[in-house]
């Protein structure tokens, strides 16, 4: 019984070629493109998600490089301000909604059934649907750039009224594409919750689950809680633009600041949506290569829950300069400082896990360690930003840009890469090439720091965000940043090479590819056959 799905047009022709090599022992009839269009297998859908997000990572990265190239030196050389604004906006939207979130969903698709001992996701056809919404959404989003008046140019935070009354005509399509992407993540989240809660191997209690599963469970709840709020906000925008309502329009009795409250009520939990699964990945990798149980497993779970709850109480720290009353400023300053505590607990736990371990430095470990260091640096600048009076100086400067890029690039993105290196042997049956991986790692680390560290200084010295040209005193910092960005961007080509080589061949990996790895996924052969755990595994709750 072939699942009945509307025919979709494949948007990345090349994608199937890359992943086509693996899992050829499929016995159901559809072949070629149809097979990928109709697949309901969690591993294939996981691969599709990962490839999609890699493509988006490069598209968003090219946009970032356009931005960095324009900022290479003072003056307007390559692009005009109008296009520059589209580049910064699209870079943000694509990286957040197209690269980081789908990458985590892809890892979840691949690994959660394997880690809980389930044969597939709970809702396989829904899984297929939620993936194929994504290419549609992003094709639509990218196509807005070709429409008259250009694509979205109001920043990824799309503050009203710049994004409503003063927006280009294509904004309606931007809203539509965001709706579709939002539905995709919601459906993905429902699927993940349903899988985790109902399909665990017999005997596996919640507290026996690997942390990646735990963090994703909490992330999925966050998604279910806040994606509808985003949908609500953009629906209000749509109504303001097309149906003459005045949610955010002062002229009609609305309030532009309301938009920011609603957006950040979604937006701050969204930040954690992009980092909690990263915590889970790192919490799997560090114990593996330290050959020592994760320190404070229970605390890690509790701290994740705590962060998730607190993330709903801090949104207005993005709005310290919009003119909030003093009481509100104090409230959000205090809650923001509080959230630093459970985050700190996690870092301490990782480091204590390393302490008196037996440590080796395989590629996944390198990325995980860099994550701990560089994410913590991002956390420090976050702590500084929490101090409301000082935020009056930091807000909307490159200091903020440095902060969230430290959290998202060597934070979320490095964790994703660590996860990919960690699980590639399971996916392909081969170890990734060590030499190339190390090149990728060191070039990335150097590139990331060259790009984002100087931004702290340019921000403190007074350079605002989202400007296409800048005063001369910022020139040196920007030059270094641009060179670093080029290095970082180029070094991701090495990553692609590693992945392709690893799919095609390389040193064979056994079922338990890493000596210290303990979770269920290492009990199935490498590469993981298309169908695993058709009969539930014997799960022995090993002491966490």
């Amino acid at each position, binding site marked *: 019984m072939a699942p009945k799905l509307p025919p979709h047009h494949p948007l990345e022709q090349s994608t199937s070629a890359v992943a086509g090599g693996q899992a050829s022992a499929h016995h159901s009839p559809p072949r070629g493109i149809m097979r990928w269009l109709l697949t309901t297998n969690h591993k294939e859908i996981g691969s599709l998600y990962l490839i999609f997000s890699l493509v988006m990572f490069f598209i968003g990265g090219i946009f970032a490089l356009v931005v960095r190239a324009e900022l290479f030196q003072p003056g307007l050389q390559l692009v005009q301000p109008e296009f520059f604004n589209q580049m910064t906006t699209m870079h943000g939207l694509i990286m957040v909604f197209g690269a980081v979130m789908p990458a985590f969903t892809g890892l979840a698709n691949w690994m959660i059934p394997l880690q809980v001992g389930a044969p597939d996701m709970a809702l396989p056809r829904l899984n297929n649907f939620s993936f194929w919404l994504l290419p549609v959404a992003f094709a639509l989003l990218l196509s807005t750039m070709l429409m008259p008046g250009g694509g979205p140019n109001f920043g990824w935070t799309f503050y009203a009224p710049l994004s409503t009354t*003063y927006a280009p005509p294509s904004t309606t399509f931007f809203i539509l594409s965001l709706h579709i992407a939002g539905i995709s993540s919601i459906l993905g989240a429902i699927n993940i919750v349903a899988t985790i809660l109902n399909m665990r191997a017999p005997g596996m209690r919640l507290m026996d689950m690997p942390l990646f599963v735990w963090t994703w469970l909490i992330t999925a709840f966050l998604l279910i809680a806040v994606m509808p709020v985003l949908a609500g906000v953009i629906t209000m925008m749509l109504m303001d633009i097309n149906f003459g309502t005045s949610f955010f329009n002062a002229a009609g009795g609305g309030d532009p600041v309301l938009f920011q409250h609603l957006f950040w009520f979604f937006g701050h939990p969204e930040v954690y949506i992009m980092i909690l699964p990263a915590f889970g990945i790192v919490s799997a990798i560090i114990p593996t290569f330290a050959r020592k149980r994760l320190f404070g497993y229970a605390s890690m779970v509790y701290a994740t829950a705590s962060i998730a709850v607190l993330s709903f109480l801090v949104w207005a720290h993005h709005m310290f300069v919009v003119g909030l009353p003093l009481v509100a400023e104090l409230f959000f300053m205090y809650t923001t400082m509080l959230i630093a505590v459970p985050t700190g607990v996690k870092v301490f736990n990782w480091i204590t896990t390393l302490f008196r371990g037996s440590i080796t430095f395989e590629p996944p470990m390198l990325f995980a360690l860099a994550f701990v260091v560089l994410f913590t640096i991002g956390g420090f600048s976050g*702590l500084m930003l929490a101090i409301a009076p000082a935020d009056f100086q930091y807000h909307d400067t490159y200091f903020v840009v440095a902060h969230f890029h430290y959290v998202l690039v060597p934070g979320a993105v490095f964790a994703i890469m660590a996860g990919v290196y960690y699980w590639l042997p399971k996916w392909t049956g081969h170890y990734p090439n060590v030499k190339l991986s190390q090149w990728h790692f060191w070039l990335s680390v150097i590139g990331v720091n060259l790009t984002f560290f100087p931004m702290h200084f340019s921000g403190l010295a007074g350079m605002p965000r989202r400007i296409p040209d800048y005063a001369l005193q910022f020139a040196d910092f920007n030059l270094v940043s641009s060179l670093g960005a080029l290095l970082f961007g180029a070094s991701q080509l090495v990553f692609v090479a590693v992945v392709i080589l690893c799919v095609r061949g390389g040193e064979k990996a056994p079922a338990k590819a890493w000596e210290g790895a303990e979770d269920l996924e290492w009990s199935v052969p490498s590469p993981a056959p298309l169908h695993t755990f058709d009969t539930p595994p014997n799960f022995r709750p090993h002491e966490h």
Partner: protein
Amino acid sequence: MRKSLVWMTGCLGFALMVPLAMANAWNMPVGVTDVSREIHSLHMIIFWICVVIGVVVFGVMFYSLFRFRRSQGAKASNFHENTTVEVIWTAVPLLILVGMAIPATATLKKMYDASDAELDIMITGQQWRWRYEYLGEDVAFNSNMSTPRAQIQGDEPRGEHYLLEVDEPLVLPVNRKVRFLMTADDVIHSWWVPDLAVKQDTIPGFINENWVRINEPGIYRGQCTELCGMDHGFMPIVVEALEEEEFDAWLAERKEAAEQEAMGVDREWELEELMERGEAVYGSICASCHQAEGQGAPPAFPALADNQQLIDDLDWHLDKILNGVSGSAMPAFRGTLNPVEIAAVTTWTRNAWGNDTGDAVQPAEIAERLSD
């Protein structure tokens, strides 16, 4: 693997050394107000707290990485829990943060106390300029970026204050408490001068408040910090802080100049005179959107050159200038330009770039339209 470690330590060292080597141009300015000094010291305190925590945490981490390498025969131990340690490392950061919250609260309260100001200034953000009104003093003017486009395009060498210079700076007295009332005409802007530690969003339809008391005379520069459309990067702020007597003299002079200008309304202006004035007004107010040659940037910014409706219909043309276009970047200039400027710029746009209507719009005519 030893090599990796050396590398990693090197990188960390680099990351830690750089902030230590911070020179002034690399750090937040101390500024010239009491509040800016307090903010700077909060910034430095929290920065050093982060550095200390960082040194401890990364110190332990790199010690572990170095000491417990398997290549050196490290055997993993099996501990995985210690409630005492966990409680300590939860409680200590909490205490540090409480300690940090106290001075931060005090500074914030100070920043929010705009009472007893001696001078009120209304700051209005507009795509893409600032307007300053000295409330109760009948002095008001627009402040536009004065960096020539040729410098931005690289056709001319860039000046010292590239992108941070304006035609009319906001002039303020030192040692007087000045209250800012801030709003915007179109989208949200944000008025920021780092040396004054004032950053406040200007929101259409709503007003925000902030205040400053400058301690030292001087020229302080800043920029718009909220993305506000195409020329967001090109709406700088310049504040000129004068000694009190100098400021009073300046204010009196501005009042007189405004009166002079008002008198100019009554007389008949020659076409050339209007054109000369109009070109200047166009250059500072209109050219950023409608472009130097009037070609515009459709669809957002319509062309003025060869615009048949403009050429045929003076009244339509004046209506657009005086009243603006709702929901677009075209503001109403009825309140922000004086009749002379409006007449001049109308005349210029009706006669430049081949729009040879020959119309000379008289200031008196504009004044009559706007009179109550």
